[in-house]
């Protein structure tokens, strides 16, 4: 494996990790503050991508598209919260899983009905097309760098929000003990709604940003959802810092594992079984990591709840 390829894969891993962070951030907040398992978070990411495609067809401008898609996703998220989710906060985790599973089934089919089952594409905004030269003979697409940068920016912003503002303080307090916060006179329902809307928007943002380099199709949220859960569980539920670090870790481990598993295995076994076993190990790697983390730290790396 050459250094060039390695650098490219590290960047790809970072880009993937940042994407996972955008999704996991909302999930971990909703989970941490409201103790609510929202499986439908993945379809909100998918919806972000679809909305971006739809608004781009209308406006032809990526920035306006992004803005409209986020607004629409936020409205839809709040509508879902109002109609369904708010009635589930006091319920058993099992019931939350089923109800949000029902919403996944519905929305996956709904986008298929509205936009068709065929994958859609979104062009990369013109100023960010093309590649830049990382080192002689090594090109890297600008858009992926934009994703990494915007994701890191969101990470910094979120960290500021959570650690410096009043809402952030309430969120942190809510993740530690929501009932005490409520008893201290904070309108916890309103806090829930703010957190939920914010999480929805982050997921939609991730969907809209990744749409230009991924095919937009029904079910695209399902795999990402599971990975986002892996991230928040490894990071510790409710912990923003944990989600950030775990997302980058998972992004890197998964991407590098997929690229180099066969090469590494070839060092210890003949090429033909390595080619068979390699991909399997690569796709299992993050789950293996999660099992290991939970074995030694049953509440994740950075547990937020003070229990």
């Amino acid at each position, binding site marked *: 494996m050459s250094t060039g390829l390695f650098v490219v894969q590290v960047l790809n891993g970072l880009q993937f990790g940042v994407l996972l962070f955008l999704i996991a951030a909302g999930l971990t907040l909703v989970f941490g503050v409201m103790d609510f398992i929202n499986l439908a978070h993945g379809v909100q990411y998918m919806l972000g991508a679809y909305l971006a495609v739809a608004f781009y067809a209308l406006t032809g401008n990526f920035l306006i598209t992004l803005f409209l898609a986020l607004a629409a996703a936020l409205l839809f998220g709040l509508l879902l919260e109002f109609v369904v989710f708010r009635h589930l906060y006091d*319920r058993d985790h099992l019931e939350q899983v089923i109800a949000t599973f029902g919403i996944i089934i519905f929305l996956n089919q709904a986008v298929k009905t509205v936009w068709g089952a065929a994958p859609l594409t979104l062009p990369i905004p013109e100023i960010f097309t093309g590649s830049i030269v990382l080192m002689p003979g090594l090109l890297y697409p600008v858009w992926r760098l934009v994703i990494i940068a915007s994701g890191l920016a969101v990470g910094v912003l979120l960290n500021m929000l959570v650690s410096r503002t009043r809402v952030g303080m309430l969120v942190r307090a809510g993740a530690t003990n929501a009932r005490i916060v409520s008893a201290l006179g904070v309108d916890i329902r309103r806090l829930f709604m703010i957190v939920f809307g914010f999480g929805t928007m982050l997921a939609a943002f991730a969907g809209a940003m990744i749409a230009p380099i991924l095919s937009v199709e029904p079910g695209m949220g399902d795999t990402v959802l599971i990975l986002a859960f892996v991230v928040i569980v490894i990071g510790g539920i409710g912990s923003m810092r944990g989600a950030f670090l775990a997302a980058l870790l998972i992004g890197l481990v998964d991407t590098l594992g997929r690229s180099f598993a066969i090469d590494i295995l070839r060092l210890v076994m003949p090429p033909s079984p390595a080619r068979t076993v390699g991909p399997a190990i690569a796709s299992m790697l993050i789950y293996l990591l999660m099992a290991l983390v939970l074995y030694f730290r049953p509440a994740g790396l950075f547990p937020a709840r003070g229990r």
Partner: protein
Amino acid sequence: MAQTFAASSTLPARQTKVLGLLPAIIFLVLALVPVAAVFGPESYLLGLFTRVMVFAIAAMALDFICGYGGLVSFGHAAFVGIGAYAVGILGSHGITDMLVALLVALLVSAIFAYLTGTVCLRTKGVYFIMITLAFGQMAYFIAGSLAPYGGDDGLTVRLRSTFLGFPFLQSDRTFYYFVLLSLFVAYLLFRAIVYSRFGRVFRGARENPTRIATLGFDVFRFQRVGYVIAGAIAGLSGFLLANATEFVSPAYMSWQRSGELIIMVLFGGIGSLHGAIIGAAAYLLVEEVLGGITEQWKLIFGPLLVLVVLFARGGLLGLAHAIGGRLDRG
């Protein structure tokens, strides 16, 4: 929170007479299906109800750990898949005898449950849900990488399992009764376990693990035994599934499948064993009926799930008990 909910529907103190007979009625109806099927599209009905019973076995196993043990597993489809692959892989090597295939299916899924249970049961609540999901995904990817056995495409089971060389499952009707027998045995087994001393400790650990531990029981070991039993029975369901569909694929282990099993349990009414049969039947029949009405059936099915959660607490059985209780009083 996870504790309070299941308790309400487990072992109701006073059962109405009809509802007490419900398990017997269910098995009677299932036994009569092939007789009634003669008057309709026979092979279709037999196939459908065979599938119902196969999934009912898996759902019942899940209900056992979930409803009685408080252990919500989101990776239970992995055990079903392991049982199915036991049939598929042995079959591709020409070993179709049930004595071998069934034993391997039970044994391998039990071992998988023992190993993963040792890790999973260290965690609690949501973390347990997620780590079982992780192991389910691992099993899914391993199955997808079995290139000699079809990889992602899966493999066909050429011949249903035989018994000492005698292909008695070839007839759909015999196979149906074999599945029914398996379901019945699974039901009796779980029932016996739930009411045994072991079952009392197992149930107690759901309600208050600290108290059970204080009484001198090793909660972890009890839960692990329960987890292994549930895994092995799900493996049995997989063994039957492979024989029913004559096909095995990694899709059997996907997390959506595990989710469906949870839905079945919740549909029927968690913590009641025979509720799992009702749940599996309701789930698959609703799917079948809606699928017959429109291609977009998922647009109806998704909201239906939400409605069931919001308004029918305790599932169909809970609903029946509520109605039955009202009739009793009035």
